[in-house]
């Protein structure tokens, strides 16, 4: 099995090298940074699905949360917002939110004062409605005020981007805790649909809360943790060189984070914790009867995987320097990562990383390859007198969706355990 993995990784290096010679070093360094970030996200999904057996279809939501976090933390401070009445009004909205939360929590403990059964359910519903009205009554004017005044939106905190990645992880942990508490009791199909629904809610919120995220107006440029190409050019480097070196610098940071997390995850799995997780995944009833707290362990693993996803999402946003909540799509940001894991091999961290790198490369080059194929066909049909293929550009750029569909189908059919399958040790 190790030999197989080594051969596949060697082939992957050859593939990246070949694509790099065609596309040039500037483009391949860009692809490499992004594919390492996707590998981190695939690793997060491997923790949840490969080791925990949790069916998370809400990856897009966590990527968006990570992207928001890095925007919020590292974008320069918006002085006009802090000078206006905005912070005060947002403070009131926060207070209203806390009051609402207190009402809902209070309704949960109503049985302590003798309100039980049906009456408690009624009280809970009333508490939720009251909390919603109280919160909306404060947040709506605050949002309208911030969007109408010069400030436009909240702005950032002007801190280091790496802090933003960490904040993304923290925020995702909080959200994953809430989602996990709500949904982890559901069986696989229901869990998939519930998580996809929640990630759509997250998308709707981030896309429309213009006061917080600037919505579809997009935020840019988001600062880098390493010198930008422009900085290197200012130091007298040639333009073509500067792009390569700055991207390699960014890649170094990403690879260090990935390697660190990978090392820790591998250590954890080799130990008793990993054995317990696999036991829960394979037979949670047996694991439960051995005294393992199945729900708590699953929640733990769900949070852990989501944190990695958010960090990966934050890296992608700070690398591309633009945060556009409108650009997130389930196909590009949830299904793509599932394909990575299925093709790479669920349950094996080496497989997850391999799938992440391979599928991201395939996804990215299927666009120019399709362009080339289509324009050749178009030239032929022109020569034959049939005329050119209409709107080649838009058609061929959609081909990556078809390629992804074919890859997932073929993988399920012919290599259901992935290219680098899970290693099961016995005895």
């Amino acid at each position, binding site marked *: 099995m190790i030999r197989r993995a080594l051969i596949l990784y060697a082939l992957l290096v050859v593939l990246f090298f070949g694509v790099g010679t065609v596309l040039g070093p500037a483009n391949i360094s860009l692809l490499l940074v992004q594919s390492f970030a996707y590998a981190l996200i695939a690793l997060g999904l491997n923790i949840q699905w490969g080791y925990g057996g949790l*069916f998370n279809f809400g990856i897009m939501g966590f990527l968006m949360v990570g992207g928001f976090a890095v925007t919020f933390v590292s974008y320069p401070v918006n002085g006009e917002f802090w000078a206006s009445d905005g912070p005060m009004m947002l403070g009131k909205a926060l207070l209203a939110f806390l009051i609402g939360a207190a009402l809902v929590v209070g309704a949960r403990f109503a049985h302590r004062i003798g309100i039980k059964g049906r009456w408690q359910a009624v009280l809970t519903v009333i508490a939720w409605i009251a909390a919603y009205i109280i919160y909306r009554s404060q947040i709506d004017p605050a949002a309208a005020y911030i969007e109408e005044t010069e400030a436009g939106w909240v702005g950032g905190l002007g801190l280091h981007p790496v802090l933003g990645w960490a904040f993304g992880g923290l925020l995702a942990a909080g959200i994953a805790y809430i989602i996990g508490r*709500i*949904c982890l009791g*559901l*069986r*696989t*199909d*229901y869990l*998939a*649909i*519930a998580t*996809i*629904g*929640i990630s*759509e*809610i997250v998308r*709707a919120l981030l*896309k*429309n809360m213009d006061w917080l995220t600037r919505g579809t107006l997009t935020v840019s440029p988001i600062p880098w943790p390493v010198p930008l190409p422009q900085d290197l050019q200012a130091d007298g480097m040639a333009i073509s060189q500067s792009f390569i070196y700055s991207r390699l610098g960014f890649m170094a940071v990403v690879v260090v984070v990935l390697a660190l997390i990978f090392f820790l995850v591998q250590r954890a799995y080799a130990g008793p914790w990993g054995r317990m997780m696999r036991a829960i995944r394979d037979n949670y009833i047996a694991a439960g009867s051995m005294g393992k707290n199945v729900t708590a362990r699953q929640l733990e693993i769900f949070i852990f995987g989501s944190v990695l996803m958010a960090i990966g999402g934050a890296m992608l946003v700070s690398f591309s320097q633009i945060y556009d909540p409108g650009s997130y799509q389930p*196909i590009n940001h949830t*299904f793509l990562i*599932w394909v990575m894991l*299925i093709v790479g091999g669920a349950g094996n961290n080496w497989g997850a990383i391999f799938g992440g790198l391979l599928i991201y490369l395939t996804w990215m080059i299927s666009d120019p390859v399709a362009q080339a194929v289509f324009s050749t066909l178009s030239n032929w049909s022109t020569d034959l007198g049939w005329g050119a293929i*209409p*709107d080649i550009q*838009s*058609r061929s750029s*959609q*081909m990556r*969706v*078809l*390629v*992804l*569909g*074919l*890859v*997932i*189908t073929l993988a*399920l*059919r012919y290599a*259901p355990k992935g290219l680098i399958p899970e290693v099961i040790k016995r005895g």
Partner: protein
Amino acid sequence: MNEIIFFINNVVVSGLVLGSVYALGGIGITLVFGILRFAHFAHGDMMTMGAFVTFVLAALMTALGIVAPIPMAIIVLPAAMVITAGLALGIDKIFYAPLRARGAKPVTLLIGSIGVTLIIQGLIRLIFGTGTYSFYDLQPKVLYRVAVPIFDATRTINFTQPQVLMIVVTVLAVLALHLFLTRSRLGKAMRAMADNADLAQVSGINTKLVVRVTWVIAGSLACLAGTMLALDVTLKPDLAFNIVLPLFAAAIVGGLGQAYGAIAGGFLIGFAEMCAVFNWAILLRPLKPIMPEWVELPTNLAIVPTEYKLTVAFVILVITLLVRPTGIFKGASS
């Protein structure tokens, strides 16, 4: 009174239309889940595919110089439904049957259906490009205005011809399905298999036939729902992919595996979405003259802003999953 007519136009008519689409799509999802025990994610794209089949047939008919008083789409619909049902059978044979034969888990089938989603979308975009199409390029949509000559109302109740046709066709389709499920041997076999697959198999039901019939019904209803949706809005490659989650919400709220539940769930979600984005302050306007001076009526009392319309379905879905995971009609739980 004008305010109530405004309410009828914006909530009742739109809710009925949206509910019909959700109900027809939800039935397909719920039947596939009941019989094959997996969440068929590609159902939305099957709807889009059906709509494109109808579109091509309608365009062919028009090109042959045939004209009709009602939209061409309605005339070619039966043929399009047959073709889509055939395509659904083909998809099952190529993609799902090999996985079933291997004894794959429902989760694998769900991931497989995502592969099918991507392939269908990719093919549609390859053939038709990414633009939008309309069934009404040649003739405009017929608009009906019903005047209500009571309580000095000046506005009219408005609906379009496709909306009327849509509701009529939905009623017919649901009736036909009801008769099939309750009267025919095959329909009874389907219900038995949805209730308990193992028991059905040992009592001698031809499960392979039931699976095929399920795909035929799901495919033809998907074509119907997709065409209806395309008639009401416009036809584009991601037409129904965007509403696949409300469809699942409808199926789950009604109880997965329960055909009648999906209809109820579909209308519930359709109306809930419309009610949630409706500005209730409009209904308070007539009270203004009788209100005391110091009471100021709010201008906007929508429960959620319009941008969050689809979110309503997900919120209902999540609440249902928490409070009653098997749905209103006690659907499948295994």
